[in-house]
């Protein structure tokens, strides 16, 4: 058993095994609290029972697939829109409009849903539009920062290599900032999960786990609510892992610059 010393001091590196042990200890503590100190919170047995029931008779898996498909669609569209706009912010004439668009993240969607319904007349398009709007507002903000944080010397270096203006943008801003761009997607995709319940509560015709959650909440089925929230967590965890993996494949150099890049 390695010493716990480094684990309690800041900025220390601990071996993978020690890290895993600590994570397991925290998990055990949470489960113990859940088992013995739950009170009004549904017990693990009841949550598992609800999960079994949701899967066996209420089509949880089908609903999950519906939500994941919608989510992937929304993320793809949001990435396309946000990245295009953010890269265009390198042009001074377009910068004010892009900057203005980033402020959309301060807006609440209350009341706007009605306007969106009129524009998209409802159904799948409405759900997609709302999700894209929500994710894009935040993703664009992060991406504008990513673009703006390109060091001057990198641009100068590219220019000394006789690259044209747009070639510089491609090499330095687009390819050179791939790592931070992935991080931006990873952080802002979570926004989509937060909004999923809202949009699937607004358009219930296709179902989805958001619809399921809203229905369970109306009937105060706490165990089922916790079960569906658990599915949200697991789906989010896999999404994070997937984006992390994609980043490590496409931008392997990004991991080399951080102290914790080697795991732990």
């Amino acid at each position, binding site marked *: 058993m390695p010493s716990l010393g480094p684990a309690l001091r800041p900025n220390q590196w601990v071996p993978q095994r020690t890290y895993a042990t600590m994570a397991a200890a925290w998990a055990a503590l949470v489960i113990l609290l859940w088992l013995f100190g739950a*009170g*009004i919170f549904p017990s693990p047995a009841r949550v598992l029972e609800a999960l079994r*029931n949701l*899967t*066996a*008779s*209420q*089509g*949880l*898996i*089908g*609903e*999950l*697939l519906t939500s*994941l498909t919608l989510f992937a669609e929304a993320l793809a569209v949001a990435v396309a829109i946000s990245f295009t706009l953010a890269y265009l912010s390198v042009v001074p004439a377009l910068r004010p409009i892009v900057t203005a668009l980033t402020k959309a993240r301060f807006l609440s969607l209350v009341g706007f*849903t*009605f306007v969106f*319904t*009129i524009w998209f*007349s*409802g*159904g*799948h398009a409405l759900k997609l539009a709302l999700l894209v709007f929500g994710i894009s507002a935040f993703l664009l903000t992060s991406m504008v920062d990513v673009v703006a944080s390109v060091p001057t010397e990198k641009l100068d270096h590219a220019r000394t290599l006789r690259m044209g203006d747009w070639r510089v943008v491609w090499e330095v801003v687009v390819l050179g900032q791939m790592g931070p761009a992935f991080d931006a997607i990873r952080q802002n995709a979570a926004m989509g999960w937060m909004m999923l319940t809202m949009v699937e*509560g*607004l*358009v*219930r*015709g*296709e*179902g989805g786990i958001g*619809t399921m959650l*809203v*229905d*369970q*909440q*109306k*009937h*105060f*089925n*706490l165990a089922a609510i916790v079960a569906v929230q658990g599915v949200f967590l697991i789906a989010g965890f*896999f999404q994070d892992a*997937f984006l992390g*993996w*994609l980043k490590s*494949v*496409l931008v392997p150099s990004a991991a080399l610059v951080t102290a914790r890049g080697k795991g732990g």
Partner: protein
Amino acid sequence: MQLTSTGQKTVRIIGGLAVIAAIGFGLKYAASHGYGRQIMRAIVPEKVSGLDAGSDIGNGFATGSGTVAFAGLPSDRPADLPGAPEVRINFWAWNSQMGCLYSNGGPVTTEGSLMAKQGIKVRIDRQDDNTQLMAQLTALAKGLHDGQAQPREGIHFIGIMGDGSGAFLAALNKQLIDSFGEDYRAEIVGSCGYSRGEDKLMGPQKWRDNPQSMRGAVVAGVLRDGDWNIAQRFMGDNGIPNNPDETTYDPNAVNWVNTSSYVEAAEKYVANYCEDRRVVENGKATGQTRRVCVDGIVTWTPADVTAAKGRGGIVSIVSTKEYTSQMPHVIIGIHKWNQQNRQTVEKMLTAFLQGGDQVLHHPQALTRAAQISQQIYNESGADAAYWEKYYRGVTEPDKTGVPVDLGGSKANNLADNLVLFGLAPGTTPETSRFRATYTVFGNIVSQQYPDLVPSVPPIDQILDVSYLQAVAQRAGGAQTAAAAAETNTYTGSGNVSRVVGRRNVSITFETGSATFTPEAEQQLQQLFDELSINSLAVEIHGHTDNVGNPDANQQLSEDRALAVKQWLEQRSASTFPQGRIRIFAHGPTQPIESNRTAEGRAANRRVEIVIGTNS
């Protein structure tokens, strides 16, 4: 074999994408092999009987001969009641509470108010979120369970609609009993008033003229809520199937766009909301998809005003104006706290119901109650005049100039409570209007959505009328108190002028006689429950097949219709007063099937029930 870094990258990407694809296809396979959403089959909702009493709704309600002296208006200064028991209440913004609000004089008990005279300090706050209401009652139960006699957290009472109380209490009590024990269950102790027109099904005029044209419609509203119940009931009265599945479209049934609130229902209609749905017939997917748009809504004031003014083109098809007993307001508290604070509960109810009397009998009390509503509900754009206007109910032109009925509520006094819960002379708890609305709508929900609401609690577990009985005792007994209950009068003869529902009911008789078979008892009980939730005039039409002597058949159909009428009237003279039921005998003159086959003849030997108004 050595791979170049580009080669490695390609292999890893292909590998990763293969994993993603495998997960996707795995989920898809599982979804289509028993783990997907099952298509729900459309069913005709259970028909509701025995719930209402009275026609000539258009003339308003007469109240009994008992008049109540004006008690003087409460001031708007909070009353100083040192040491008085404190009660916290959460109410929806709902006009049926007019009398209860009046009794308190304001958000907190004011000087000179009926509540102050009872020596109770009540604080009323608005809360339109059912989950919050459940959470607040749970917080109070938790405080009690933790040993606080007067918990500092949570609220003591909430108010919701009686027809939805089954589904509400099924969810809440499961939670409370599992966490704290049987004594901590929530229970109903009384009623502040009724919805009388404000809750409705709105749709194109053709649904009113011919309810069968509603088949294939798409209606927006909050599923499993009181407004949805109104539509369920109308469909039940007319034999129209309901498609409970909010993801499919059945052209032979009524389909639903589920919304999170009654306001969103109106917004969806105004925005002309549409979506693509899988078409199903007889519970099976046809493989087709169809774009469907919202044709109608179930909602309540002020969203009915929103729909009328924002787009128009839909009228009130049926509402709590016709289904008078369907939506009583009910007051819900925690059983254990109520028992330990019996006097406080009785005094609070006394003040509430005296407030009801004041609002019912004195216009200035209603005006003051509307001002209190404005203070408590704090609804933007709604002044006191607004609440008073929609309490009374109005007819206003919509955006297209078509007149639409909007609003309509009624405050309850003690006598109304005694009638509602079956404590008044001539009523029994077993045949009460509350039992009918609670049972019927609880069953409709659990029958269609067994996964969400497996069952509703038995009525004896959620209703404690002992507080009301004590209040009545002190008021001089139920006999005296009931003198001032609203009564309905039935005038006119011949057929109703506006048919609200028409359907055949199965009531079986011994061959060739007007004697009921043993199965008929249950059929009659169901009919009684269904007719209890409205106060519409009832026509019973007797029909026979063409076998035998036509004159004898004519007499037989009359005897059978009369037997049904007498059974209902004997069950409850209060629900079926003289004149409410009229009988018509047609003998073999109106067959609905061919008399050449045994099945056809069986279908022709029938009793048809028509309900409607004479307005």
